[in-house]
């Protein structure tokens, strides 16, 4: 097995991730007849025997024309792949168990389109696409994820039987791409440890500037900008508008605060669930892992940083 794999690597010149853009040069596009191609060849053999036996001059001509067609197909199929440029595209992080989609860019720098190119990540399902002339096409290659961390798709097979299904041209590329796989959120996790953690807190009654909360009588030190002038205009006394702040509940997602009998992956899974909940509820949260601590924060960037820390824990 080992020897076969290394032979294959040598044969198809696979030496690890390649620098983009990857051009499918003629030396790395392989062609072989398909089953249909072999059947076609067999049919041609029968036709040739028929032509010889009955001295059919036109039979020879037809058989030879079809044989020429077979050779021409070889080159058409080869041409459908050769000189195609491939560059890695966007890869969105996913949660373990979801399908990662590896974006690939196919640049066709030719005045003719390329058709029915099928692409496949090892272990993933096949996706077929056309690459129009002088244009770039994006393809998403699906691959189901199982483990958190960086997922590399490895070898991508590009193949085509266009135009006549008689010949298959294929090539292997190894674009330098990886997908960040977050831990799978725990399905039935306990609720967020809002009260359990002593550091959670914050109040909803403090002063702030964000939301209007009411009016009180004016005091001389109040800013004139906070005076409710509309009330004054209605003939009321001077009133001052009061605001409450946007101060938020804080929660620490702490690895060490989890039950001691929980395994590492289970801990990460639960923390991921809590992180999703905290983000969804708009809380301020921090993450405490054995090797890393992310301070309290909010927002998309912070959320991503936390997820990334969880995904790459222990790497």
């Amino acid at each position, binding site marked *: 097995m080992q020897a076969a794999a290394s032979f294959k690597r040598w044969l198809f010149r696979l030496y690890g991730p390649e620098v983009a853009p990857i051009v499918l040069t003629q030396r790395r596009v392989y062609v072989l007849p398909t089953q249909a191609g072999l059947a076609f060849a067999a049919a041609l053999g029968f036709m040739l025997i028929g032509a010889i036996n009955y001295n059919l001059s036109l039979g020879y001509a037809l058989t030879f024309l079809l044989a020429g067609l077979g050779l021409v197909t070889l080159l058409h199929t080869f041409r459908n792949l050769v000189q195609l440029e491939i560059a*890695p*595209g966007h*890869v969105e992080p996913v949660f373990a168990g979801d399908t990662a989609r590896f974006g690939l860019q196919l640049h066709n720098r030719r005045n003719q389109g390329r058709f029915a190119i099928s692409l496949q990540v090892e272990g993933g399902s096949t996706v077929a696409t056309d690459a129009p002339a002088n244009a*770039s096409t994006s393809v998403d290659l699906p691959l189901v994820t199982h483990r958190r961390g960086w997922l590399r798709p490895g070898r991508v097979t590009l193949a085509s039987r266009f135009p006549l299904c008689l010949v298959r041209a294929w090539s292997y590329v190894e674009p330098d791409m*990886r997908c*960040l796989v977050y831990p799978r959120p725990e399905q039935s996790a306990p609720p967020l440890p809002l009260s359990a953690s002593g550091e959670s807190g914050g109040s909803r009654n403090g002063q702030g*500037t*964000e939301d209007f909360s009411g009016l009180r009588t004016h005091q001389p030190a109040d800013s004139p900008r*906070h005076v409710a002038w509309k009330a004054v*205009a209605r003939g009321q006394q001077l009133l001052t508008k009061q605001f409450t702040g946007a101060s938020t509940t804080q929660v620490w997602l702490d690895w060490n605060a989890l039950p001691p009998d929980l395994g590492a992956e289970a801990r990460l899974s639960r923390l991921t669930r809590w992180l999703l909940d905290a983000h969804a509820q708009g809380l301020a949260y921090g993450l405490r892992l054995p090797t890393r601590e992310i301070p309290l924060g909010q927002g998309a960037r912070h959320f991503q940083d936390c997820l990334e820390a969880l995904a790459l824990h222990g790497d």
Partner: protein
Amino acid sequence: MSLLSSLSTDCSIRLKSYPPTPMPTSPLHAAIHHAGRIVLGKEHQIRLALACLLARGHLLIEDLPGVGKTILAHVLARLLGLNFHRIQCTADMLPADIIGVSIYDRNSGSFQFHPGPIFAQVILVDEINRATPKSQSALLEAMEEHQVTCEGETRPLPEPFFVIATQNPYHQIGTFPLPESQLDRFLMRIEMGYPDQAAERELLAGADRRDMVASLNPCMEPGELIELQRAVREVHAAEALIAYVQALAEYTRRSPEYEAGLSPRAALALLRAARAWALIDRRDLVLPEDIQAVLPAVAGHRLHAASGAPNASSADIAATLIAAVPLP
């Protein structure tokens, strides 16, 4: 790094025979010259700021305090003969503090509008990330629309209207960083950086900068500036150049290096800034070099490295982008 240094150097080749360039930009160059004598060693930033102004965009300066952000804004306003206001943002600032309030006048029995500091031609919004999102959006809306709406009444802002906002990237506690959608409202984001040794020595030895600003005379009339803004739009961008802008935008959208690509608005901004840059460079046509010169400032705050990649500066991001996209 050689790429970066070549990007920041001025394009010094003058076009003698083609095309004949009757450029009415001498007041502009006088302004650059005078500004360079006060804001020492920062000619590239001055040019960028000026290009931003000529392209009718707004400028975000991200740097430490004390590197000359305020002086730059002051000098520009002074040299171009524009009036100048400064807004110092704080957490308790309200939109009314920027826009202005209507105060009930008991004598006349009616509301009277007291315009806020935004009613000026050049506004320096200091530490914009200290303002609450509410105030930020009020300000940014005014920047976008060139008008303010207060108590149901729409009031136009003066022309030209140029906002220079600053933010301090290092002390983020208790701040409200501008969301990415709002960052897009700024045509450029630049960093001032420390002055080099020679410039700093001259700064220390020289006169007080504030006095120098006070003694500056305007180089042009406000009308002239509006004329220049119009001229920017006339600068020719050939098909090959538009293809280049398109290729750059395409690349950012497709490449895995970025979280999200440049929007069509960003591509437009790039072209607009490049036109202004070309005009400052006394040309009536845009060159790829113009695009490359303004790219760090225009695209830096609009592009983010994808997750997992090291956080790169906007200059690095622009440099790799330029190197990755061949000229069409």
